[in-house]
C-alpha cells in the first residue's frame, strides 16, 4: 500500500459539525476509531483514505504545501494564506456553510466616508494633517493589500491583529479595520460600518484540492469516487423527482417544460404508455405540476431525491482540469 490519500477536515466547532454532516450526507462517514479526541480518522468503507482533523488555518497551510490531497477550509483563508492561490490549489466546490464576508469597516462617525474613493481621499488628507498613515487593523494582510491597491489607496499601513479586530478603533490602535463578518452585528456593536464597495470577498467553506500533492492513479481513483458521491448528493439536493402520465403528443410539450422550468429528463422521453420522470429544481415544482395537468396529465407525483448518479462527474472534471492546467 502506498502513501494514503489524505483529507483534512476542521477539528472543532460549527465548521466541524457542518463538514461531518456534509460528508455523511454523501455517504462518506468520517470515523474516529480511537474516540472523539482523536485527530486521525478514516472514512467508513473507503480504504486507503486518512482523515486528519486540524484547524482551518492549518488545513489551508497544508493545502498550499501539497501535504494533503483534499481539505475543507474557508475561501478567505485560501486567498489570504496561499500566495498565488490558483496556482497551488483548486476550489472544487462551495459547500453551502461557513458563509462570511471579508469587509472594510470604518467608524460610523465618519459620515463623509461611504466609498473606497472617499477612504482614499481621507487616507491622504490624514497623512498630510497628522504626518502619519491611517492604520488598518486586520489579520487579512494580503487581501487588504491587494484590495486597497486595486482601489489606488496607498496612504495607509497595516497593523496585524490576531483577535478582536473590531475593537481596534475604539482602543486607539487603528483607525479602521478589515475583518470577517456574517451579520454585521459585531461591527455595529463597535460603532463601525461597512464601506459600500468595501466587500473584499464573499467567502464560504470550500472543498479544496492541493495541486502539488501526489496525484497518482490510486489518488485519482479515490478522488473520483469521493467526488462522484459528493456530486450525486449535491445533485440530489438540487432537484425534485416529478412523475406523470402524459397525454399524446408530448415531445414538444416536454421541450417546452425543459425551457420554462429548467427541467431535466434523466431517462429519456415518455414511455409508450406516456409515463415520464422529470427532475425539477425545487422552486419550480408547483409551477411545473400545474403546467403538466393543464397539458392533460392525470396525476403528478413529486418526491425528494436521495442521490442522483449521472454519467458525468462535474466535480471530478473540475479537479482533472485543475490538475492539468
Amino acid at each position, binding site marked *: 500500500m502506498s502513501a494514503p490519500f489524505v483529507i483534512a477536515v476542521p477539528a472543532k466547532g460549527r465548521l466541524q459539525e457542518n463538514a461531518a454532516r456534509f460528508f455523511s450526507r454523501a455517504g462518506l462517514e468520517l470515523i474516529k476509531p480511537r474516540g472523539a479526541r482523536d485527530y486521525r480518522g478514516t472514512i467508513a468503507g473507503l480504504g486507503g483514505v486518512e482523515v486528519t482533523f486540524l484547524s482551518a488555518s492549518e488545513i489551508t497551510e497544508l493545502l498550499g504545501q501539497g501535504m494533503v490531497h483534499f481539505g475543507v477550509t474557508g475561501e478567505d483563508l485560501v486567498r489570504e494564506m496561499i500566495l498565488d492561490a490558483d496556482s497551488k490549489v483548486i476550489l472544487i466546490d462551495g459547500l453551502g456553510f461557513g458563509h462570511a464576508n471579508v469587509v472594510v469597516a*470604518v*467608524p*460610523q*462617525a*465618519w*459620515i*463623509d466616508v*461611504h*466609498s473606497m*474613493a*472617499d477612504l*482614499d*481621499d*481621507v487616507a*491622504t*488628507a*490624514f497623512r*498630510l*494633517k*497628522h*504626518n*502619519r*498613515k*491611517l*492604520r488598518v487593523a486586520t489579520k487579512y494582510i*494580503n487581501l487588504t*493589500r491587494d484590495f*486597497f*491597491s486595486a482601489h*489606488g489607496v*496607498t*496612504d*495607509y*499601513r*497595516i497593523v496585524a491583529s490576531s483577535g478582536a479586530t473590531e475593537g481596534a*478603533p*475604539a482602543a*486607539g490602535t*487603528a*483607525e*479602521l479595520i478589515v475583518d470577517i463578518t456574517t451579520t454585521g452585528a459585531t461591527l455595529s456593536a463597535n*460603532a463601525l460600518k461597512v464601506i*459600500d464597495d468595501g466587500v473584499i470577498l464573499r467567502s464560504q467553506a470550500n472543498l479544496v484540492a492541493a495541486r502539488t500533492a501526489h496525484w497518482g492513479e490510486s489518488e485519482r481513483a479515490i478522488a473520483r469516487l469521493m467526488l462522484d458521491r459528493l456530486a450525486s448528493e449535491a445533485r440530489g439536493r438540487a432537484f425534485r423527482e416529478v412523475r406523470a402520465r402524459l397525454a399524446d403528443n408530448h415531445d414538444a410539450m416536454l421541450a417546452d417544460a425543459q425551457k420554462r422550468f429548467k427541467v431535466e429528463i434523466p431517462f429519456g422521453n415518455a414511455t409508450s404508455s406516456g409515463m415520464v420522470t422529470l427532475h425539477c429544481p425545487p422552486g419550480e415544482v408547483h409551477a411545473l405540476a400545474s403546467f403538466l395537468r393543464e397539458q392533460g396529465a392525470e396525476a403528478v407525483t413529486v418526491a425528494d431525491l436521495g442521490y442522483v448518479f449521472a454519467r458525468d462527474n462535474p466535480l471530478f472534471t473540475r479537479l482533472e482540469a485543475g490538475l492539468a492546467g
Partner: protein
Amino acid sequence: MTSAATRSAERASDKRAEALVASFERAGYTRVAPAILQPAEPFLDLSGEDIRKRMFLTSDPHGRELCLRPDLTIPVSRDYLASPGAGKAHGFCYLGHVFRHRQNEPSEFLQAGIESLGRPDIAAADAEMLALGLDTTAHYGLSAPAIHIGDVGLFAALIAALDLAPAWKRRLIKDFNHKSSLAQDLERLTISASHARPEYQGVLAALAGSDPKGAHALVTDLLSIAGISAVGGRSVGEIADRFLEQAALGAQTSLPRETRALIERFLAIAGDPDEAAAELRTIAKDGSLKLNAALDLFESRTGFLAARGVDVRRIKFSTAFGRGLDYYTGFVFELHDPQGRAEGQLVAGGRYDGLLTRLGSTKPIPAVGFAAWIERLAARGGAA
C-alpha cells in the same frame, strides 16, 4: 564555476565596490555602517505597503517589530538625527547589504550610496548627486548610461498654482507618485463627491452656500448630539471639515476640461532639460501660473550639471517621470543600461525633503541622495 572561482570573483567585485565607496569618501562623504537589524516602524510608516510585502520582518522577545533593512536611506537618516550633528549639513556614504524580496534576483543584495543631509544649496546638491551617480556607472565601465530625470516639485508647483478644490489637489499629487502614467489616469479620475449618498445631497447642497464657520459648528454639534465621539484618530472637526468640503465641491465631480487639458499638456513635456524649461515657461505664461520658484530651481540645477561637465543634451527629462515613492519631493533620477540589459535601474535617487521631519525632526532638513545596485553594475558594466 567552481566555488573557489566564485569566491575569487566575489573578492574582485568587493574590491571594486570598496574602491567606489573610497571615491565617495574622497568627495567628502563620511562612511557609515548602520545596523542591519532595524526597527520596522519607520519603514512601515514611510515606505508603504508595497514595500512592506517585500520586507523581511521579525520580532524580538518583547514583541517589538524588527526588519532586515530594506534600504539605507532611512537607517542613515535616523542615525544622523540621533547624532549631535543633527540639523547641520553633513554627507554620508555607505556600502552594505539590503534585503528585499525580489522575484528574479536574490533578495539580499549590495547597495552603495550617498545621503546628503542638511545642505541648503538645493540646486547644487541635486546636481552633485547626479554627477556622482554618473561617476558610479563610469567606475563600472559604463560611461554613457541612459539618464532619466524628473522633478516632483514642478508638478507640485503646478497643482498649487491651479484654482482647484483641496480634495482635487490631494488626489492629483498622490496619484502622481503612484501612477506610471498619470496622463492616462486623468481620463477616468472623478472626485469622491459623486459617491456621496443621495440622502445627503440635500443637506450638502443647503450647506454649500452657507457661512463656513457656522456650517462647521452645525455639523460638529450634530455629531455630538448623535452621541458620536471621535474614534479612530480622526477628530470630529476633521470629519466635519471634509463633509463640508464635499458640499463645497457640489456638482464639480470631474476635473474641469480646461484644467485637465492644461495638466495633460504639462505632463506631455519631455526632452532635454533646456528645451523642457522653455516649454514650461510658455505653459506658465499661457495659463498665467506662478511656477517661477520651481522653474528657477530647475534651470539653476541644469546650470550646475553643465558646470560639472555633464552633457545636458544627453539627459532625458520628463515632467511625468516619478520614482513611485511618495517621499520624494523634488529632483529624481535613474541611470539605466542604454542597451536595456539590466533588470532595473543601476543607480537611482532623488530629493526627499520631507523625510527627516517624518522621522521626528522638529525643523525641516533638506535631503538628497542616491543608491547604486552593485551586483547589477558588476554584471552589466564593462571592464574596470
